[in-house]
């Protein structure tokens, strides 16, 4: 299975107050940023998900200068062209300081998927997205 990743960023809806926050180190990770105070690292586990097979996403980052907080953190994937998401709801697991693993994800069809990370903070909502072509 070939997975091509192209990165896109969606800016935070509200401008947050910059604080000291460092994106956790994650080997072989992709990065996402909004050019302001939100940035993150993420990777698939296994590195190339297969259609119809479960995979996880490990990630960590900063939303408006504040480390991600599992309580208001959400990960999802949709197929924009087909107007549907996954058939499975991922579960977030804390795997280390500032790092999370979203388990139970599946791309059940080939095509363009949009992976999104959403963090709600007191300052607003951060949303970072990336396009994945699954063949």
């Amino acid at each position: 299975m070939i997975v091509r990743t192209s990165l896109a960023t969606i800016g935070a809806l509200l401008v947050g107050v910059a604080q000291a926050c460092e994106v956790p180190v994650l080997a072989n990770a992709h990065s996402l940023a909004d050019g302001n105070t939100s940035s993150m690292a993420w990777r698939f586990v296994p590195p190339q998900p297969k259609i119809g097979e479960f995979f996880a996403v490990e990630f960590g980052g900063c939303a408006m200068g504040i480390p991600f907080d599992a309580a208001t953190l959400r990960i999802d994937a949709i197929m924009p062209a087909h107007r549907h998401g996954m058939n499975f709801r991922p579960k977030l697991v804390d795997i280390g300081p500032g790092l999370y693993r979203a388990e139970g994800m599946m791309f059940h069809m080939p095509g363009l998927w949009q992976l999104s990370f959403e963090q709600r903070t007191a300052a607003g909502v951060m949303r970072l997205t990336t396009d994945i072509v699954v063949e």
Partner: protein
Amino acid sequence: MMPGRLFGCALAALIATSAGAQENFSTAEIRRILSHGPWPPPAVKDTGNRVSGNSDAIALGEALFFDPGLSRDGSVSCAICHVPERGWSDGRATAIGLASVDRNTPGLLNAGLNRWFGWDGASDSLWHSAVRPLLDAREMGVSPAHVARHLADDAALACRYRKTFGDPIDDDTTMVNAAKAIAAFQETLASSRTPFDDFRDALAAGRDDPAYPQPARRGLKFFIGKGDCQLCHFGPAFTNGEFHDTGIPFFIAPGRVDPGRHLGIRTLRQSPYSLLGRYNDDASGANAMATRHVELQHRNWGEFKVPTLRNLTATAPYMHNGSLATLEDVVRHYSEVSEDRLHADGEALIRPLRLSDGEISDLVAFLRTLSAPEDNKPYRPRFASRACE
């Protein structure tokens, strides 16, 4: 690894093109064709069924599959609806057990490859799907006590049960064990290689298969191209194993609807026989990932499982309600599907393909090459023919 694979595909494209009158396939198309094989896939044991692949269990399961004694009045066996020479389906629009059922009987070949079972996926394992008709009043309509009593009263069955599972513990466990034995038997029902598989493997080897008919090639090209059929009919089994609204009405009768996947998920969550229950033999629970994470969504209403396209020629009529009599009817449905019939809040996936008669004929020609005639002969017991000692 990726460049090597692409080179192989390019070579195959070149050879397919050089055949002159042959339908040409691009490198990308060949890559898609190759994704539908190889066939058969490697056999995989069901970790949730400790007797998966066990020869004693298979023999017991085969005997039980053809045994009407597992029904309330002794008239209905699994094989009444899953008729071997009909692709392990029954040829009816909707099934009839002890009473009429609302859905078409799916064939059983390659059933072991599924993630979900039944048109609504209310079962999450093959053995769970064998429990369901036993308890359904319209199908076999028995209780766990009936199954346990039948297994105890029939000396041959009792012998096979003891050899497989040891002495019975309680009625519920005995019924689940019987279902696991039936599942072990069903896992042996695999479809044979087809003309498509020969063509696919020839492309994989960088050759052409001149015996593969031109209409089928044109149909295949449409299937993996303009038709986008492989978005749902994906992989070697030609199904992504999930659920979609295909515009087939889900009204059963005035005032009665079939909620499809929406009901399936709700039923699954209430079942004591799901992989989240105590009968799952995988202590790690790793095989219950799908059941743990499946999400009930509004769009599930009216969605039904994407069936395999293998061995289609024997399993007419088609769709969840058996409303389409022939493969031509099915292709014509996708050609003319009314978008008004699709769930307003559902996926934007199905659209009328607007096919010409020639394209319909080509697509049907391709679909026919996914069947192997030898798969639909009358079945002779292979495992339970020897006496149990």
